[in-house]
């Protein structure tokens, strides 16, 4: 009976891992990169070198938006902080391809024209849970993948029964054995992180896939549901009478004072320029674990305080803490790097699991295993290559080019597609070696190209204590070394999987 249970878990683990494994790898890696979303955005806008205090930056942003996008239903602004130099603005715009714009504004002038047009780290962040698919399908797929991941983790703990006995074991050069060791070690060492990030990831999208709690309590009255979920927010219809927005600086200073030492992080302005304008300031999401904790709401026309709210309901706090744990915005430097490393470990656990699926079936024939082996290369090498292409496009495409931000995203997907196609045409063993060699070369060359095109290189960054550029270049060099190591290992594989490979190559 016990044997039967473990066997069924083994089947569950290998199939749940395989079916959405490629997607999970892309989600895990884009999420890992998103840990440094602010830094990636900063690197992708090399023109911006100095910031302004949050309140001044918001004032500048509101000034520019008031002139250029006064008709928007709302402006959602994130103030610059120690990590981000620019103000991030999201607002509806019927002329935009997606119906909304997500742009970075210069902290001093408030204009987006100071820097090249790019989505920056926002692209990887959005891809992580929307997968570049229309709402809500991308989110549905992402949460389905997360649930599959949770199943894979739990069934994995059951079937790899020796992981706790061989806790610290890694044996190299033993073919399938080594892959299994790597899979187990990467999985078990960061197991608390893997479980946390998977469960909290599901929590972030929970109301989308499990709306029944809301439906049972509120029926179709979603307005009440929203209002009770976030009592700090004040919402009202536009009056239709134009009234200029009161100066925003004093409102932010007032909010700052009422937040008892917390910084102002996000500022949203609903119905700007209308008599019923509302300004909501939230405290910075990096000041506590919980993702949203405090809001101060002002009447936009008069600047009068309408509502001050501090979240104190335990259920909501628990949700916000889980959400905040997933976002990791609170994480100070050491924690941020640990998030990054654990994320890499998760991506590597998924990748080694995908390789194991092939290695465990040396006799498998047919379209399925053939395709799976090639999809492995196309995704595990292709996705990081696509991120690299996104960065290269950022440096190479001319700044005044129309549709520039979208072209960077196209470079990402075309590159991924090209690597997938390449993987289909090549034997997997060769493709592993070649793609990772190119990956290593590409990552190592990027800092040099970036220096040539922007004048901001590793040497000048270190001398000028520019930790953003120095850190970015050093990380790229480290990842290049990692990719080179994988290319070398993939080149000298032991005989474990070779009979099948030879059997394929010789008759051809």
């Amino acid at each position, binding site marked *: 009976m016990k044997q039967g249970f473990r066997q069924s878990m083994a089947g569950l683990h290998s199939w749940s891992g395989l079916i959405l494994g490629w997607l999970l790898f892309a989600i895990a890696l884009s999420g890992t990169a998103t840990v440094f979303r602010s830094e990636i955005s900063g690197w992708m806008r090399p023109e911006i070198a100095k910031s302004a205090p949050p309140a001044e930056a918001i004032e500048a942003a509101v000034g520019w938006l008031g002139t250029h996008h006064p008709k928007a239903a709302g402006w959602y602004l994130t103030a610059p902080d120690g990590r981000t130099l620019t103000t991030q603005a999201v607002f509806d715009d019927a002329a935009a391809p997606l119906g909304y714009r997500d742009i970075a504004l210069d902290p001093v002038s408030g204009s987006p024209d100071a820097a090249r047009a790019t989505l920056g780290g926002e692209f990887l962040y959005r891809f992580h849970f929307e997968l570049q698919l229309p709402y809500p399908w991308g989110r549905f797929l992402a949460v389905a993948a997360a649930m599959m991941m949770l199943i894979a983790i739990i069934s994995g703990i059951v079937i790899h029964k020796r992981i706790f006995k061989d*806790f*610290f074991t890694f044996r190299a050069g033993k073919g399938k054995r080594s892959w299994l060791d790597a899979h187990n070690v990467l999985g078990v060492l960061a197991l608390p992180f893997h479980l946390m990030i998977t469960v909290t990831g599901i929590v972030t999208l929970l109301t989308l896939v499990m709306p029944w709690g809301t439906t049972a309590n509120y029926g179709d009255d979603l307005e009440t549901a929203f209002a009770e979920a976030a009592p700090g927010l004040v919402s009202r219809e536009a009056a239709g009478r134009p009234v200029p927005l009161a100066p925003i600086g004093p409102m932010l200073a007032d909010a700052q004072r009422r937040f008892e030492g917390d910084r102002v992080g996000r500022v949203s302005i609903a119905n700007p320029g209308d008599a019923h304008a509302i300004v909501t300031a939230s405290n910075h999401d990096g000041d506590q674990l919980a993702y949203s904790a405090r809001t101060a709401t002002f009447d936009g026309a008069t600047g009068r305080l309408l509502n001050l709210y501090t979240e104190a309901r335990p259920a909501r706090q628990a949700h916000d803490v889980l959400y905040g744990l997933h976002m990791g915005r609170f994480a*100070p430097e*050491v924690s941020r790097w*640990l998030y990054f490393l654990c994320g890499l470990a998760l991506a590597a656990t998924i990748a080694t699991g995908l390789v194991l699926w092939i290695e465990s079936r040396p006799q498998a024939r047919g379209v399925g295993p053939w395709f799976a082996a090639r999809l492995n290369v196309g995704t595990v090498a292709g996705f990081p290559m696509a991120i690299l292409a996104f960065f290269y496009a950022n440096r190479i495409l001319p700044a005044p080019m129309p549709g520039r931000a979208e072209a960077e995203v196209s470079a990402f997907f075309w590159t991924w597609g090209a690597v997938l196609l390449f993987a289909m045409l090549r034997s997997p063993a060769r493709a592993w070696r070649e793609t990772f060699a190119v990956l290593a070369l590409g990552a190592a060359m990027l800092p040099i190209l970036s220096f040539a095109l922007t004048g901001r290189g590793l040497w000048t960054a270190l001398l000028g204590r520019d930790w953003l550029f120095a850190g970015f270049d050093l990380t790229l060099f480290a990842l290049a070394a990692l990719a080179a190591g994988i290319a070398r290992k993939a080149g000298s594989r032991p005989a474990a999987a070779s009979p099948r490979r030879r059997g394929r190559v010789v008759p051809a």
Partner: protein
Amino acid sequence: MNAVAVLPLAFGGLSLIGLSMQRHARDVGLATNPRWLRGLGWVGVLLSLTVALATPNWRFALVEWIGLLAAAAALVVLALYCRPRALPWLAAGGGLLGAAAFVLLIA
């Protein structure tokens, strides 16, 4: 910034736990696995937790400690892979380094 004390302490503790396990004791070249090391190892891990939490914001510190524990475990795997016989010395070094760093941080 007390990660400089937490990481070596966690490494020392996890190394001792490793040495108390049959397979890893054999990797290191011990004839038997000294079981009493396990208790000592857990003391090291708990010590690292105590040091980690000795900051104004224990919530952030707890998250960081879990990450550091994973990093320390990865270092034990690396040590067992590259220099298995040095592990007892590395464990002792980790404990001493962690204790010294903690004393310096307090002072």
